[in-house]
């Protein structure tokens, strides 16, 4: 199996989906000959032509709205938003249309679209290039929100997202676009969209995260292991609707939970998980549910951005604190 980066796996999945299904259309700013600012769509226009790999005008609302219209015709549009900071003009289309077409027409019209966008900070890019506002999206009924954390899962989950009959926002962890490498077989097999992945089993504490932060989370698990603490690590992967059963099952086992995300703390998606646990697994809890998150402030520009994000240290400290709680 070839080893590749996460962004290459995205590219591979797109190519595969376009090859398998002539209804798949890729659109966005610079996705054509330029292959996307992160090279996620490189080679696609040459292979599938400019009608199926379409450079749009600079207008994000338009990209999302075009996807809705195309999807209503049975195409399977995959729109790219260049950075998550430019996704906000799409929110209206996502909330008011994409997520509702099926329900509004009681199944007559549907919206099998995917909106892909890089997610998160850490590449020292300008302002607005460091957003992780997945919680806003994961609050929208009718939408799916997916975020892979490895090349393999990027490939399988993106295929699943494209094949899914409903709208999916697919967040791609920018910071590990190239840093994450792994073997990916181009077997056309999708991964399930409603199942969390247990990346590591352990009985002492549950660490839950998604996207790029799993890098630090896994590193924290290593550090904890060196200390004799066996951390179970869950990659939530699909945030909406999310796999409550795996979360509850793990916490029932460990009794301790640390949720890690890069997004600002208040109202982040970590809150939802903590709430689920407080509601449905309270009696298993041996320690408070901890959230290790970005601070409650605006992601700073490049010079300070690394200070905003959870560090391995902060995760380890929280996990130890949970384990020592009594």
């Amino acid at each position: 199996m070839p080893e590749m980066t996460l962004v290459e796996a995205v590219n591979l999945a797109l190519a595969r989906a376009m090859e398998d299904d002539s209804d798949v259309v890729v659109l966005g700013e610079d996705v054509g000959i330029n292959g996307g600012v992160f090279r996620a769509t490189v080679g696609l226009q040459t292979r599938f032509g400019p009608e199926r790999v379409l450079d749009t005008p600079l207008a994000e609302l338009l990209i999302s709205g075009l996807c809705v219209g195309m999807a209503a015709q049975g195409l399977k549009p995959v729109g790219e938003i260049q950075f998550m900071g430019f996704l906000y003009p799409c929110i209206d289309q996502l909330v008011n249309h994409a997520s509702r077409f099926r329900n509004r027409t009681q199944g007559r019209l549907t919206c099998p679209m995917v909106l892909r966008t890089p997610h998160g900070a850490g590449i020292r890019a300008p302002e607005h290039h460091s957003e992780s506002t997945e919680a806003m999206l994961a609050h929208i009924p009718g939408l799916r929100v997916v975020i892979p954390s490895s090349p393999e899962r990027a490939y399988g989950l993106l295929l699943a997202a494209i094949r899914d009959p409903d709208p999916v926002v697919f967040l791609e962890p920018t910071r590990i676009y190239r840093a994450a490498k792994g073997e990916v077989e181009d077997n056309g097999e999708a991964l399930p969209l409603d199942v969390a992945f247990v990346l590591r089993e352990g009985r002492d504490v549950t660490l839950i995260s998604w996207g790029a932060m799993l890098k630090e989370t896994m590193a924290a698990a290593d550090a904890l292991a060196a200390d004799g603490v066996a951390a179970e690590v869950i990659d939530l992967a699909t945030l909406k609707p999310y796999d409550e059963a795996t979360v509850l099952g793990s916490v029932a086992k460990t009794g301790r939970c640390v949720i890690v995300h890069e997004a600002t703390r208040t109202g982040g998606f970590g809150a939802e998980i903590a709430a689920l646990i407080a509601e449905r697994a309270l009696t298993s809890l041996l320690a408070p549910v901890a959230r290790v998150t970005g601070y409650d402030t605006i992601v700073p520009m490049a010079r300070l951005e690394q200070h905003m994000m959870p560090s391995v240290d902060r995760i380890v400290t929280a996990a130890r604190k949970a384990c020592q709680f009594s």
Partner: protein
Amino acid sequence: MASKKMADGGLPVIARFEVRHRNYLAPDGSINRPLPAFASDANLVTALYRAMLLLRNFDRKAVALQRTGRLGTYAVSLGQEAVSVGVASAMREEDVLLPSYRDNGALIWRGVKLEEILLFWGGDERGNQFSGPVQDFPFCVPVGSQAPHAAGVAYAFKLRKQPRVAVCMFGDGATSKGDVYEAMNFAGVHKLPVVFVATNNQWAISVPLRLQTGCETLAQKAVAAGFIGEQVDGSDVVAMRAAAEDAIAAAREGRGPRFIEAVTYRLGDHTTSDDALRYRSADEVQARWKEEPIARLRNYLVSQKMWSKAEEERLAAECHERVEAAVERYLATEPRRPETMFDHLYAELPETYAAQRRQLAGEGDA
């Protein structure tokens, strides 16, 4: 005539644009300029007339239902019936309509049942699961947000080389939304088979056109998207149909998108929740009754001997009957059970939410 001059008038002109105006029937039904061929086809023109009258009757009844608590907020077409009927009559079945909430007339022409429209305004999603062409869009409530959909639909037509046209309808207020502009600009880039129709009824609720835009015409909005915009007398159904036919034909033949400004007047309140007397005088409205499209067409029909008093009476009775029968079916519709609110959330209800559905169904708590 509007014409903006540059400060330095000596600079060379590198592009010129113009907006034309289309009208055939004068407010009294007399003929202003040579009519298009279809205007002498009695079957067709009386069909337009019937559709407009049905719409007006239907509107009246819908308002009565609302007033008596049997319907939700409702938006009448009073005074602007010619727009939706004229446009829809120029479409083919396989074209796709993307209407705003005030385009009842177009939906009815395309086969949506009156009781389905009532269901929608009665607050039931099943009204959108309608008998019109299956790919037609439901009423769009967020103003202008259907315009990018229209561009997407038209892009799909082009990609698949289907000779079909998307027709997107909205109001004068909608022309202020970036959504509409972005969609039109994109349509211009790819010369998409899409026709945008702005019903300029002079008002967006209480906001008059002059606060909506500094433009002399809405038709000129198309200049910024690189295609043709035409101003049409939207109270003249002959002009509306002719303009829509031309535009749809051009779009179908690959000659690119078109924009139609249908100039008319909203004689009624914005919706049943509105009281237009708060912001415009009864006199203003009264004056506009002279231009309204139904009397205008009737006068034309009568002058052309295409229509008789007897036919008028028969039609009135027919409309009444159709509307009453639809209302009966509407009122007799079985209510949806609460838990069905989960049924079309996703293609398949995720297990995570199944417990909530059961709770709603009274089968347990979640």
